[in-house]
């Protein structure tokens, strides 16, 4: 039986990668909450995850390297956040909003980790026959 770890884990490894990228961006936003002229950035999670999955599929030759969209960000997938109340110094970071998004992202990150954890546990149960 052909078995691929990639398929066993589904989309979760990519989801974790995109989530950690997003955490990094939100951390940048919050660190720059008081920097004049700084504009808050974010990514479209759905779009980036789709790119990440497509970049693995679109390979026309078996020896092509799989593209990894997450680790080489060109900046084009980074979008600017539209502020609710822009500050006078040109800063568009809204800390409360960013914190809410950070918490949301952290929970979803944990959910993906739990799914992965479950998959790993079931695989290891299948290998050892439930004996550990």
């Amino acid at each position: 039986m052909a078995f691929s770890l990639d398929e066993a884990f589904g989309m979760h490894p990519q989801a974790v990668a995109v989530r950690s990228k997003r955490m990094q961006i939100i951390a940048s936003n919050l660190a720059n909450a008081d920097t004049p002229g700084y504009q808050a950035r974010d990514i479209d999670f759905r779009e980036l995850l789709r790119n990440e999955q497509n970049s693995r599929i679109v390979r026309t030759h078996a020896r092509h390297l799989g593209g990894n969209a997450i680790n080489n960000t060109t900046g084009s997938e980074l979008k600017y956040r539209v502020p609710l109340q822009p500050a006078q110094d040109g800063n568009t970071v809204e800390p409360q909003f960013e914190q809410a998004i950070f918490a949301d992202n952290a929970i979803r990150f944990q959910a993906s980790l739990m799914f992965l954890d479950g998959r790993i546990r079931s695989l290891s149960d299948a290998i050892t026959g439930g004996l550990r």
Partner: protein
Amino acid sequence: MSMFRIFEIAGSGMAAQSVRLNVTASNLANADMVAGSPGEVYRKRQPVFATYMDPMRPDPATAGVRVTNISTSSAQPQKNYEPGHPSANAEGYVYRANVDSVEEMVNMMSAARSYQNNIEILNTTKELMLRTLNMGR
């Protein structure tokens, strides 16, 4: 793993905010300073923040912050006529520091909140990384 960069980002935020707290503390400590000439009197200081990216790997998604300069206010210090004051000059004038304590208190609270935000980010990231390490155990 790119999550290690979050520690650098949040760390840079905490460092910048602590400089801001420091400057606020000096402003408040010198708020009541009085001198006989405008050159001697304390002038309000303010840190200047700027976005910082790693010059080796400039990535807009990994933008820290750093203090590029501490600017000194050029506003004229308050001039009062107090001939009885020990620091008064020959004409009887004294100069008071141009520090507004209310403004400084607000600045201090804002810096403290931003510092807390960065700590929150550090804690959450640490927690998530530990969970990732323990995955499948």
